[in-house]
């Protein structure tokens, strides 16, 4: 398949799907069919993309036929393809889940088109090679998040959405101003072109830190790093699982993706001055996140805070900035997308049966639903980085990369954090699964057919998690190649500008 089709399909497919869904506004069942088709094709396309990128190198298409620095280029390297593939897998699982568990009224008020457009935004962010276009796709993704988080207008949803909207609006503003600064200083918007300029003897290269601050703050907010993460725990637990699983599983990692991309491509020339800051931020992010999680007594809130701590891990790879560490980050992103989505789905299954997310009100799942318990246990242990599950590999690569580079304190922090992660995962296990069901809770347990079909998406994701853990070699190799590609940005520049 030529790059023209291959790179535009991940954008157009969800968009066309969403348009169809809007036309079928009242016919939720038909919408479901459309979305199912889109998800399946999406996985196929991203798989093809990965294959093509691996065999033929970086793929580029110039939108509108305008050559690279003038038009917008869509670029796919291994990182992009890997992330999109992971996203599509998680997307399919979330779709299956929400098809069964999400209430009818939310579906009738546009859940499916919003979901598809969210995917489109993710694809756009991952694919684009233009910095302003990146901003636009980020806005697409964000407004979908806004709408989805508020969809249903429950009190907690509204509150969460308000915080989410306000802080992310400011972040977008900072990004926009940063892009303005970038354009004013270097006169370019194409990322490859910018990368080339900052590596040349351009007069303004010494001012690179200036837009750097804007981008670090802006994308730092979107990625939820330390002093900027507060919107995340305020909002991610509010909407129903069919929504929050995808947002929590995928969206926060997209911020990390952009940081990885921008720092490897544009800001790598000043990585030495940014490194101490990034190291401190990543350490604090993982520590504060996990401490926050330890304080919570709600299934989803614990998971939400863990997102922050794992963002710290991902940032750690970038901060260390060695091939191994960046490969670790990439692997960690992939692992975390799948595992976090799955854990949210498991919490959804539990809540679907027992009608609560509160650790105090839940209990006794271990005896009544052994399968569910094991589904949770494996995902949770994977999140805690227990070998040979997927989390371990990322942790190992990061720790080794960090020790190699001499960042002992950071590695120590990361290991401590992983212990506390184990603590809070087993806390959930103790409280929700092992503890007998509290007597005074009268809620009946829902034992419908749909409650069993809900296992299916969880199994589906779990299969990937297990494969990622037990047969880690190919993915680790891919992340290493991808890290290599990121660190050798001249291939990227060449592919975009000169081929």
């Amino acid at each position, binding site marked *: 398949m030529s790059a023209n089709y291959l790179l535009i399909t991940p954008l157009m497919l969800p968009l066309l799907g969403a348009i169809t869904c809007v036309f079928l506004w009242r016919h939720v069942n038909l919408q479901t069919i459309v979305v199912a088709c889109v998800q399946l094709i999406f996985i196929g396309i991203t798989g093809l993309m990965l294959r093509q990128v691996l065999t033929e190198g970086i793929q580029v298409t110039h*939108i509108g036929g305008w050559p690279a620095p003038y038009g917008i280029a869509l670029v796919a390297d291994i990182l992009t393809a890997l992330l999109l593939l992971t996203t599509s897998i998680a997307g399919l699982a979330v779709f299956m889940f929400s098809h069964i568990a999400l209430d009818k009224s939310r579906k009738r008020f546009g859940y499916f088109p919003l979901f598809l457009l969210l995917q489109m935004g993710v694809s756009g962010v991952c694919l*684009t090679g233009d910095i302003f276009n990146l901003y636009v796709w980020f*806005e697409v993704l964000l*407004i979908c998040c806004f*709408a989805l988080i508020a969809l249903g207008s429950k009190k907690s949803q509204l509150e969460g959405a308000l915080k989410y909207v306000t802080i992310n609006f400011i972040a977008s503003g900072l990004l926009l101003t940063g892009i303005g600064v970038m354009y004013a200083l270097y006169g370019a918007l194409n990322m490859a072109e910018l990368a080339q300029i900052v590596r040349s003897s351009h007069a303004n290269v010494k001012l690179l830190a200036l837009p750097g*601050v804007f981008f670090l703050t802006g994308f730092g907010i979107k990625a939820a790093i330390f002093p900027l993460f507060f919107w995340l725990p305020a909002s991610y637990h509010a909407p129903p699982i069919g929504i929050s699983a995808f947002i929590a599983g995928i969206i926060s990692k997209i911020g990390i993706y952009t940081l990885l991309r921008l720092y490897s491509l544009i800001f790598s020339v000043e990585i030495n001055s940014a490194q101490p800051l990034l190291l401190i931020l990543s350490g604090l992010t993982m520590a504060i996140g996990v401490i926050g999680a330890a304080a919570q007594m709600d299934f989803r809130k614990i998971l939400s805070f863990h997102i922050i701590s794992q963002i710290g891990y991902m940032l750690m790879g970038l901060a260390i900035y060695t091939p191994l560490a960046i490969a670790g980050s990439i692997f960690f992103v992939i692992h975390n997308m799948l595992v976090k989505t799955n854990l949210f789905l498991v919490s959804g299954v539990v809540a679907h049966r027992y009608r609560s997310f509160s650790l105090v009100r839940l209990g006794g799942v271990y005896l009544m639903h052994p399968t569910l318990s094991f589904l949770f246990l494996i995902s949770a242990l994977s999140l805690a980085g*227990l070998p040979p599950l997927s989390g371990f590999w990322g942790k190992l690569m990061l720790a080794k990369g960090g020790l*190699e580079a001499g960042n002992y304190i950071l590695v120590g922090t990361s290991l401590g954090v992983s*212990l506390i992660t184990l603590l809070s995962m087993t806390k959930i296990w103790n409280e929700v699964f092992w503890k007998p069901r509290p007597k005074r809770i009268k809620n009946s347990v829902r034992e419908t057919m749909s409650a069993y079909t809900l296992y299916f998406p969880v199994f589906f994701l779990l299969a990937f998690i297990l494969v990622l853990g037990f047969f880690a070699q190919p993915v680790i190799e891919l992340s290493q190649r991808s890290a290599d590609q990121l660190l050798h940005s001249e291939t990227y520049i060449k592919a975009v500008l000169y081929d």
Partner: protein
Amino acid sequence: MLVVLVLCLLFAFFAPRLYRLLGRYVAIPMAILPFGIFVYLLSFFPEVLRGSYIIQLYKWVPALGINLQFRLDGLSLLFGLLITFFGGLIMVYAAGYLKDNPLLGRFYLYLTLFMAAMLGMVTSDNLFCLFLFWEITSITSYLLIGFDNKNVKARSSAWQALLVTGMGGLALMASFILINLATGSYTFTELLAQNTSFSGHSYFAPALILLFLGCFTKSAQFPFHFWLPNAMAAPTPVSAYLHSATMVKAGIYLLARMSPVFAGADAWGYTLVVIGGCTALLGAFLALQHTDMKAILAYTTISALGQMVMMLGLGTTVALKAMLVFLLAHALYKGTMFLAAGAVDHCTGTRDITRLNGLARLMPVTALAATLAALSMAGLMPFFGFIGKELLYEAALSSKIYVWLVFGLTFLTGIVYVAVAVVLSFGIFWNKVKHPTKLEHAPGYMLYLPPFILGFLGVAFGLAPKIAVTPILERAVQSISRGELVELELALWHGFTKELGLSVLTIILGLLLYKALKFVQSRYAILNPVYNLGPERLYHKAFDGFLVFAKKLTMVLQNGNLRRYIIYLILFFSALMFYVLWHDTPHILFASRVVIIQELPFHDVVIFVLVSSALFYLLGTRSRLTSIVVMGLVGYSAALIYIMFGAPDVAATQFLIETLTVVIFVLLLHKLPAFIYLSHQFKKYNYIAISILFGTVMTYTMLVVQDHTIESELKTYYGQTSLLEAHGRNIVNVILVDFRALDTLGEITVLAVAALGVFALLRMQPEKGEKP
């Protein structure tokens, strides 16, 4: 080996299903598995005996140097045989012990998984492969300790064990990484083959400390010993198997494995001797004060583990021999005693030694097994324990460091073992009293056969050490000693040596201690305050303290106050910006600006004054409608500015959008009830300061950037091609719909989503009740 492990996994995951089919007879297939592996391992025996070792390599993650590489040498084989043989017996025993438990299937699942992990651990050659199995043993141990999940004590003990050993596991991982980085080797074989020690490397000390941390937590060494007695909340088969015979010896195994690498260093020997000694003494000391059978056994296990660590610290060949022989002897007698204790507990419903007596009549086989084990533990003549004790004394006496301390500790613990052995055999089974304890039910053969076999082996090995155990032990010692050829001579009778004399003395003193036990126990109460300072207390304090700290910190940081979040954000951004501007100090051309100021056109000043006064008016006004109008005015002024600088499209858009915004405002917010007026409270001045800070930073940045702006080549290109290639005269529009049409596509998508979102927000009524 991989086949074995996969087989174990298969058996493990089919166990619950088999249980549903076979009921408690699931024990038969589950026991066949370990015995089968036992036989399989035995098939390697001849080759190992010849002094070589077997390497099996399966590629797994070569990208990180982590492969499933197994190494079967004397040490691995010894442990492997121990694990499988014990495993088989435990499988049988468990079916008797947990016969009424509906979760027996899951129990077998965990137990088989554990066994597989343990087997994998002792046979793996790759460091990280070992770590993998190490962690699996931790997690299965967690699941097994908490097996009685309705019991709070079981849950919290399981948690404690997991956290303590988990911490050690992470330390171990770091240690392995350091070793790997320092030596470049991934496997023990490579590590052992390296002649040059890496003790000079800067990673040596941290690697050693982290290794100790890993091993000490796993093997319940002081000050991490406290999790082991708590872990006795597990069902007895688990205690016997994991917490006495196998898992806790993982740390010993690893230390033994590593000893050729590290043993040269002083830190190695001294640390191990001191920590091991402390643990041995502490365990023995605490064992005496308890009356719960399992607690006594747990503390003596801790003590024995300390003993082994001490021997490893001595590092001489005789000490290594003593360590391994003692390890085997300990496994045999302690396993037996645990199983016997479990049987007693199961049949009488209590484990308190003060309430148990004269049981020999009621459960004779169990009594016999326990007695055999006790005699071995006490170190009486024909038993294997005797050989172990003799060797221990010999090693202690030949110690190069702290010889009297080492010997004294060994001797003291020996005395305590004798007393404990008497308590647990004579005191429970043979003590003649008028009212013997009543049984709730008689022990089934599943409950008494396994301990009996083990107890019997204790005698058999003692009587014929040459045939049964010498060869394998010799190979095991060989594989952990550094190169030199080892010959092991095990015999009951060495003649009248001083070790023999000491043994006799030990037994006499031990019996005396037993007599004085009541007196000793009554004195223990004095020590209670000391325990408040102990490591367990510390663990609980740290744990609770951490939770309190977490809660407080989270409530301070994440306190739900949106304004606070924004302040953090702005301060972060401004601080960074300040730093960058201060650090890079880009120049601003003030001189030329002064000229510009002098030449300012009048209408510019008017707009400026208008907008700023409108903004200041906005700050003060309380009326909602006025605010909307003034805000619209500011927006229109912006449109005016755009048009002044040659951007008619932008100006038109701004104008129309501003109009729409005002309309939306009027439609939505104008008619709302007024509510109360809210002032800025006391923090007003803080907020003003932050706002001004942010504004200043932005202004300064703009001034800096203005002075460095360059002419973009994009502008030229678009100017050149707009009409000729893109057929449009309005360059802005051409950019929007042709050059950068993808932006516009994204943008209209945003608009569409905004409309859908607005629709859903306003029209959808929230549902009643919680839904996932």
